[in-house]
């Protein structure tokens, strides 16, 4: 089945999605919308988001800034269109609930959010190893995800809380939190430190540290950073029988390095205790298939009624609530935000 598709937000992400849809072959992108018409675009372009409906799409791909996502998603669902939306799912959990309400009112439509890290090859391998039971019970997870904030940091909409809802944590760290929840379910206890160190005049965090625990006692720590001058993605999972780590993540920029999965099962001494530094297996992944897998899952959900495994609205809500819990757990940060808000209100 070929799905007539409109892309709202035809920037970097919109074009990545367009390319993935072309590779898939089950989509016909009939129109794209952005603030300006690109004369070199391969598809007709409009600047009014509502104009895309004149092209009678089956599907809306939503690649707009966070603050616009709820409106675009809810409108599309109300007009009977399936929706694939970028993450983060709006600016806060209220936004997600609003979209879930629209989704509930259109039960035959598919709403998927693009949490593509779940389907990176190394992450999928890690998931398989854990699901097989070979590694034993999960004890703890550690995640570091960071980048150098980049040029025009202060001017970027991603760092305007009115448009984005937060800083590096909601923009990038949210992927790590989503992975934590994929491996361990929801976390109900959270401690955190949220800081702005380098861009002190920008009203969003450039570093967030959080320690969290779920009902099964699994502990996770995350460090999400915009002052990680050496771009880093590292996820470690320690289990009863061994460990798994994923170093690097394949991205459009390529700046996080090759994706390397390392896995080891413990060697035991005669008394049954693990001997340090067991033999480990390292597997390198050099091609990013995540965009293609996400698009394929979305197509299968729309065309064949397959249930979504990744990027459901419930997962979106869970992770957004965790982001909010991390912001809220640092009292100093919360107080500073309140002060900033009061300043803006005057």
């Amino acid at each position, binding site marked *: 089945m070929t799905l007539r598709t409109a892309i709202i937000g035809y920037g970097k992400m919109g074009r990545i999605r367009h390319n993935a849809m072309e590779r898939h072959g089950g989509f016909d992108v009939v129109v794209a919308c952005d603030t300006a018409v690109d004369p070199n675009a391969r598809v007709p372009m409009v600047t009014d988001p509502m104009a895309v409906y004149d092209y009678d799409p089956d599907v809306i791909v939503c690649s707009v800034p966070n603050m616009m996502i709820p409106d675009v998603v809810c409108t599309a669902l109300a007009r009977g269109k399936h929706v694939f939306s970028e993450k983060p799912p709006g600016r806060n959990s209220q936004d997600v609930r609003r979209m879930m309400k629209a989704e509930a009112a259109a039960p035959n439509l598919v709403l998927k959010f693009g949490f593509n890290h779940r389907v990176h090859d190394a992450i999928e391998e890690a998931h398989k190893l854990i699901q097989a*039971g070979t590694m034993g019970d999960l004890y703890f997870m550690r995640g570091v995800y960071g980048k150098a904030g980049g040029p025009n940091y202060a001017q970027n909409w991603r760092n305007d809380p009115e448009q984005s809802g937060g800083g590096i944590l909601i923009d990038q760290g949210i992927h790590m939190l989503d992975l934590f929840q994929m491996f361990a379910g929801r976390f109900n206890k959270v401690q955190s430190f949220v800081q702005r160190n380098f861009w002190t005049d920008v009203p969003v965090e450039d570093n967030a540290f959080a320690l969290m625990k779920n009902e099964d006692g699994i502990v996770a720590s995350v460090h999400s950073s915009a002052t990680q001058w050496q771009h880093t993605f590292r996820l470690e999972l320690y289990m009863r029988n061994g460990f798994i780590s994923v170093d690097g993540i394949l991205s459009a920029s390529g700046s996080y390095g090759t994706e390397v999965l390392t896995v080891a099962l413990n060697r035991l001494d005669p008394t049954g205790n693990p001997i340090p530094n067991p033999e480990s297996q390292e597997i390198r992944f050099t091609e990013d298939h995540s965009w293609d897998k996400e698009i394929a899952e979305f197509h299968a959900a729309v065309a064949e009624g397959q249930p979504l495994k990744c990027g459901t609205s419930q997962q979106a809500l869970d992770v957004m609530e965790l982001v909010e819990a991390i912001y809220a757990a640092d009292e100093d940060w919360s107080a500073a935000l309140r002060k900033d808000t009061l300043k803006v209100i005057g």
Partner: protein
Amino acid sequence: MQTPVFLDHLPDIDTVTGQKPAQYRLMRNKALLDLMLDDQISWQTRSTCPACGEPLAKSRSFSQSMLEFQRCSGCNTIYATRVPDQATLDRVRLGQVVEESDREFEFTSLLNWVSLTEARLERRLDKVLDVRFATQALGFVEATKRLSHNRDWSFLALTPDSDDFIALQAEIAVAAPKAVLLPTELDRVADPAALLRAVKAAVSPGTVIFAASSCADGLEYEILGADSPSFVPLDRLTVFSIQGFETLAKNLGFKTLEVSTPGRRDAVILERYFKSAENSDIPFWSSFFREADKNRLRDLQILLQRSLKSGVLRFVLET
């Protein structure tokens, strides 16, 4: 297809070049000489590469001492140009079982290899058949009981077999395994293709084969050739290259799921060689190894593994 790298400590060089391994090599070489001097032994001449089938005429000489070995110019596999019949080889091996102490890490590595592959394939490999390894690795049966839970292991003993492995094929069929472990046979049998054919004929489609062998692409063979302490002719009748084994597996109808060269010894063997041998000046490598510390050796060994250039190969195949 995946190409894992197996990261571990470097081995103690004495496990390769110490007195015990030296005695083992002498014992095997003596057995080979005895075979060569025995007029009753029937030898089969190999006219093509046992891996890729390239004619012998197109190969290069690898070793002329004792038994003649060639290196295939098509796939880089090293092979003896003539081999005794299988039953003779098996009888000689049975008479030379040597109990090696402390092979725990080797056993754990094999068991973890099976476990992690099982998890990655998302398929239960709850019935595994070891082919002949336990006969020569005396602690392996006990290790499987202690370390490999939720898996039913059976062990096919090394017994003299015919050239087409008819007896082995029948026993494998009775065992009906979901996975077969072949860690030590491929380089030691007269006809590795016949062995793989027998295994394939005996198991159900979808059976996973864990095969290991010495690897002709390993740096130790590339630099030291037949002088490598790993090169024990009677135990290395076929030293497969990656390309060679891949070709053989494909020609026999196996699907290759995983390829690796988890060898850990190339760097320490070469270090010992260049530090002890006189007149062994090879541009770059001589000074590299003479100046190398443990960290550099480890880095090199990891690089060799990542490049599929260490002296041991492992394949996971599917029937």
